[in-house]
């Protein structure tokens, strides 16, 4: 465990020692703020129109449904752009600079290194998510959204982010070149993202299938305030599988030399 933490801390420090942490957090905060602002204005306009028509009660605008849920959906777009930056160098850079030789000749298991790197990236992601809590806080000051769907949405976001990180980690372990790693990761994320649309345009069986495969579709229930174990298990298995593939890649690299 202490080995895992040592790696995780080194990773997190590494993000902040270079530009990655600042670029990704900055980009994240900026884009999140922009989405938030756009959605909020849209929401305010809509609810004013609603008021004009004199609609009240259960039909009225719901902050959770009309603002927070679409906002969370938009976070998935942000992940698409930001997460490749976070994961692209995890392995590539160690391989390029030769520091991987230090890690692999130290008394560490591959598991400890991989999980350590995963936790390090997760920690940076949590910092990014923490930035978004500021916006949510604002909603609590000026409105009264339900907190439960927000909590479940964030649990969903954390799990979904973990899936993307495990994929990014795997791709980074395949190449020495962090730029290639970043681009391939972006492409892969895009595919995972696009699958959802393909599903909605196709027949019901394919739709069902893509809904299951799509990381993003599984987030929807979390946004509605539902904590469904199938989704949680899906995400956790996805992460485990990603880390497993990374372990396989690291090991086969070792055999190939």
């Amino acid at each position: 465990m202490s080995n895992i933490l040592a790696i995780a801390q080194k990773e997190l420090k590494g993000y902040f020692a270079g530009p990655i942490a600042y670029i990704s957090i900055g980009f994240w905060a900026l884009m999140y703020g922009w989405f938030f602002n756009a959605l909020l204005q849209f929401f305010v306009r809509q609810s004013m129109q609603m008021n004009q028509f004199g609609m009240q009660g259960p039909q009225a605008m719901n902050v959770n449904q009309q603002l927070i849920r679409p906002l969370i959906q938009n976070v998935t777009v942000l992940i698409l752009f930001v997460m490749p930056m976070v994961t692209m160098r995890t392995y590539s850079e160690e391989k390029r600079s030769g520091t991987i030789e230090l890690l692999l000749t130290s008394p560490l298991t591959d598991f400890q290194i991989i999980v350590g790197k995963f936790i390090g990236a997760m920690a940076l992601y949590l910092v990014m998510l923490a930035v978004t809590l500021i916006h949510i806080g604002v909603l609590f000051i000026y409105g009264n959204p339900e907190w439960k769907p927000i909590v479940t949405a964030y649990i969903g976001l954390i799990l979904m982010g973990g899936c993307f990180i495990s994929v990014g980690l795997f791709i980074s372990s395949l190449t020495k070149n962090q730029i290639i790693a970043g681009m391939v990761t972006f492409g892969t994320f895009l595919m995972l993202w696009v699958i959802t649309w393909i599903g909605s345009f196709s027949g019901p069986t394919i739709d069902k299938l893509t809904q299951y495969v799509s990381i993003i579709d599984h987030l929807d229930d979390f946004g509605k305030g539902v904590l469904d174990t199938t989704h949680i298990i899906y995400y956790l298995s996805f992460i485990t599988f990603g880390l497993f593939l990374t372990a396989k890649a690291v090991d086969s690299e070792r055999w190939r030399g």
Partner: protein
Amino acid sequence: MIEVQHLSKRYGRVTAVDDISFKVERGEILGFLGPNGAGKTTTMRVLTGYIPATEGKAIVAGFDIFEQPIEAKRRTGYLPETPPLYPDTSVIDYLGFVARIKGVPAGERRQRIRQVMERTRIDDVGGRLCGKLSKGYRQRVGLAQAILHNPDVLILDEPTAGLDPKQIIETRQLIKELAGSHTIILSTHILPEVSQTCQRVVIINKGKVVAVDTPDNLTARLRGSETMYVQVDANGADASSALGRVPGVTRVAEAERKDHCVSYEVDSERGRDVRRDLARTIVNSGWGLLELRPMRMSLEDIFLSLTTDETPAPATDGDAPAEAAPAESAES
């Protein structure tokens, strides 16, 4: 301390290391000598558990590196060809991280890092970023990293490569100080390094061990006879027959002729010093003796003769061509 048995490593169809075997005793410094591409780095990577071998066995610090890699790694310090530094990390932070992953107990880390920094003379750059260090400092931080957890075995891949002469001397000195408490394998493609630092040499070429011995023995073993280099101003006369009559001399060959000055290579029986008689003969004949010196076969020549197929040309400074036996196969 280290035992390598029939180790082979193939990358696809390239055989980088081909059935090598050797042993290193506790406290010994073993030089791993070979031209570029000989398989030194590959062997060291196998011994440190970075890559698995295709065949064979290696025991490091009492543990099989393939069966119990963690235990073996715990007792091994490794300086790769390029020091594995994180450019954005300060030297102190870097060593702190290494201490953690190498399993130095939390309470001892601070003191251990300070000791090692003093020992490798990097205490003045503790706060600097590793990426901003000069090559010499980088190499020393790499060395500090390798000895941080006080390992039984130290594996150093070309520890003096790219350093300036002063740094090279310092590094060699440091390595010698480390021997005794550590068992060391160091690789190099530079010969003087081996004779100055190592007690034993493994010469490796194209993945195969071609010789294992002490530097002195290697020199002696390959020297068939004693050869003298003699330069004479004989006013145009031929001195070779006179020199050939000196007792003990077996052969006289003209090496070079410039105006009046003629240079000869004079072979003599082994263990017989013919210098005095040669000098007397020349002076008594009324010639000028310009130069007289033994031509010992240097480690350089031995190395060349063992690692190249063609016979090396005699060096211009008069060193003898290698008349060494064809590359011998490994012993031990």
